[in-house]
């Protein structure tokens, strides 16, 4: 079965500093990979996704992620964090479920705190 690991439960960075959130997955085939962000009191918003092609994908809000097959990783990065980026970030892997609908398996999330 597929699984997603986000090893960092909580990360604190200073505004303007760079950010990298880690995500490792376990899946037998080429995965469909996603990063979502959840601001306080809000639902999840899709930041970016990868399923083929260039292994470096660009998303919204200045985020990017790099797929590394050899490391089974899909880490999220941002060169300069803004205070408004404080939120919880979820990595997810998508699979087809018996041809009926795709399922997402989520990691446990990383809570980002930004200090001024």
């Amino acid at each position, binding site marked *: 079965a597929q699984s*997603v690991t986000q090893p960092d*439960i909580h990360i604190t960075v200073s505004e303007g500093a760079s950010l990298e959130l880690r995500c490792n997955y376990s899946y037998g085939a080429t995965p*469909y990979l*996603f990063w*979502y962000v959840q601001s306080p*009191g*809000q*639902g*999840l*918003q*899709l930041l970016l*996704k990868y*399923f083929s092609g260039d292994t470096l994908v660009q998303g919204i809000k200045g985020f990017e992620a790099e797929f590394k097959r050899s490391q089974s990783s899909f880490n999220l990065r941002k060169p300069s964090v803004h205070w408004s980026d404080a939120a919880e970030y*979820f990595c*997810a892997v*998508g*699979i*087809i*479920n018996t*041809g*009926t*609908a*795709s*399922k*997402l*398996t*989520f*990691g*446990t*999330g990383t809570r980002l705190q930004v200090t001024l």
Partner: protein
Amino acid sequence: DVKVTQSSRYLVKRTGEKVFLECVQDMDHENMFWYRQDPGLGLRLIYFSYDVKMKEKGDIPEGYSVSREKKERFSLILESASTNQTSMYLCASSLTPAPGQGKFFGPGTRLTVL
């Protein structure tokens, strides 16, 4: 933009009550999903539906049922609420079954069962 709405942001119910959580999407999406979100556990799939009146169990369906009578509406039902069902419930939809299709999430319903 796709909009996914959930009937309540906060809900307080008593043990044993029947609870309905409603979700509506306005973009004619085929697939709809119910997740629960708990600290340290991330999001876990309860049920999903790929068409009207069609449903499949997710990873944690016990204690829940669902109803999809119309394409735009997907309801989660707790037949007899228990305290361990206190959680944040998130509804999502996607246009197609394709695994690369991103899902659109509603704002969530925070349910407290006393």
